[in-house]
């Protein structure tokens, strides 16, 4: 195992460039499904460019945390993305850590985001931070347990090894523990990335917003970084779910043919998951905030059952 500069650059480019497209696709498909015309799929790129050009307005009460946060959030999302095997089974930064490092990086980003929500002392920011942390406190253990289910089967918490083991002969889809872990991870994905049953990414309604509330004070370049980081986080969660649950097609060796197949497979899997998210967001209403912990406990329970059945029955 070595740190391969080319693969790092390639995956960084993939993350940075495709993440906004995924967000745009979901918005567009959702609108189509609801008989609206919807924004074009390139809209997120235009938004990012617009934000990058605009001046920033920073509250005079803001401390260094306020300007430090966007960089931390962006970089943690990016480096977490580099730990997820996307096209090649060997993730560019897999040498630096497995699942625990990934969850830790995401938690670090969330910690700073929650701090910056509190920093300017706006009422909404604080509310958003408190909600975000409440949800994360239950979503995180559920996610860890769900990933541990696959990790136990693979015998390693290294994501690359898990994907490789998943491609091996001993794996099947019919295994109930994997199906449970998949559902649990999907619920966590919705919670962590602020999708509909938990948070509504399309609204700035005070009563419901969670993620948006923490970003309210941001503008210009910082807002662009935070939005971009949120899109990357969504992308990396979808890719993680896709490649852990259905590890087919991921390239074992960096050969051109295998890479092309792997890229195609990744895009197909992401599109399929995106369709699932779109259908779910159209079918399901947003949950009341007080019912969100119940949903996450369901996810935790499923993950617990998954670990139990893969750990105790062998």
């Amino acid at each position, binding site marked *: 195992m070595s740190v391969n500069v080319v693969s790092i650059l390639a995956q960084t480019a993939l993350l940075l460039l495709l993440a906004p497209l995924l967000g745009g696709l979901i918005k567009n498909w959702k609108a189509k499904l609801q008989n609206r015309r919807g924004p074009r799929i390139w809209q997120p790129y235009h938004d990012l460019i617009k934000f990058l050009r605009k001046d920033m307005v920073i509250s005079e009460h803001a401390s260094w945390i306020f300007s430090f946060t966007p960089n931390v959030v962006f970089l943690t999302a990016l480096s977490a993305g580099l730990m997820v095997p996307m096209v090649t089974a060997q993730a560019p930064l897999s040498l630096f850590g497995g699942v625990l490092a990934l969850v830790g990086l995401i938690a670090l980003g969330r910690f700073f985001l929650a701090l910056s929500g509190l920093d300017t002392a706006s009422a909404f920011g604080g509310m958003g931070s408190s909600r975000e942390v409440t949800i994360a406190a239950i979503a995180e253990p559920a996610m860890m347990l769900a990933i541990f289910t696959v990790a136990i089967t693979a015998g390693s918490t290294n994501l690359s090894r898990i994907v490789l083991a998943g491609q091996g002969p001993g794996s*099947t889809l*019919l*295994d*109930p523990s994997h*199906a*449970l872990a998949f559902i649990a991870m999907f619920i966590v994905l919705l919670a962590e990335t602020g999708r509909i049953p938990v948070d509504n990414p399309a609204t700035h309604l005070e009563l419901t917003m969670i993620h948006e509330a923490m970003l309210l004070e941001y503008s210009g370049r910082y807002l662009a970084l935070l939005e971009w980081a949120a899109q990357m986080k969504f992308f990396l969660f979808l890719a993680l779910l896709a490649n852990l649950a259905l590890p087919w097609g991921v390239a074992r060796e960096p050969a051109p043919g295998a890479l092309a197949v792997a890229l195609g497979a990744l895009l197909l899997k992401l599109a399929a998951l995106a369709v699932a998210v779109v259908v779910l967001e159209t079918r399901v209403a947003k949950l009341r905030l007080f019912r969100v*912990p*119940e949903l996450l*406990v*369901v996810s*935790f*329970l*499923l993950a*617990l*059952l998954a670990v*139990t*059945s893969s750990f*105790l*029955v062998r």
Partner: protein
Amino acid sequence: MNPELFARLATLASSLVLLSGLAILWRHSLQAYIGAFARQSFLLVVATLVVAVSSGDRRLYLVAALIFAVKVVVIPRLLRRTQVHVAADLEIHPYVNTPASLLIAGALTLLAYVVAEPLVAIGALPTRGGIPLALAVVFLGLFIVISRRSALTQIIGFLVLENGIALLAVLATYGVPLIVELGVFLDVLLGVLVMQVFVYRIRETFDTIDVDRLRDLKH
């Protein structure tokens, strides 16, 4: 059928039975409970059919058909009629709130795995992997009975418990003798009918089917 695939299918079906039971803890309306129970019974039929196909036991087809008739069609219909008649739809204040119930259900499943370990270890049937899950369904049914207030929900808890026992019988021994099976079905059906009468009476006396109010009888 390939025995390993068969074992997987049986375990998958039993986990789905357990999951549909867990749905009862997460939902709040009686209508959803009845739907979840019907789904659970249907999955029980599927599990029975899987075992029937692989073991080649003809009797199990009959059992599956009976389960379908009694627990997927008749009993849910009876329950729905009762629910409409007593005009109750929400399980408002269960004794244990939803997140705690779910966590307790998780603990009960763990307990089922621990308790069933020797059973699984000595079992020779390929379906033995599902035994802890069936036991967990039994525990779950009991838990629903003791943690919910509405008389109808308690009936549903009892039926879930019964489903767990049926699943256990199918997985652990490929079904009990037919005469026992028939007796159990009759028992369940009559039990539900009797309990339905009780629910009507409770409703007439107290204007609610909250069993907590039954304490008022003492005075």
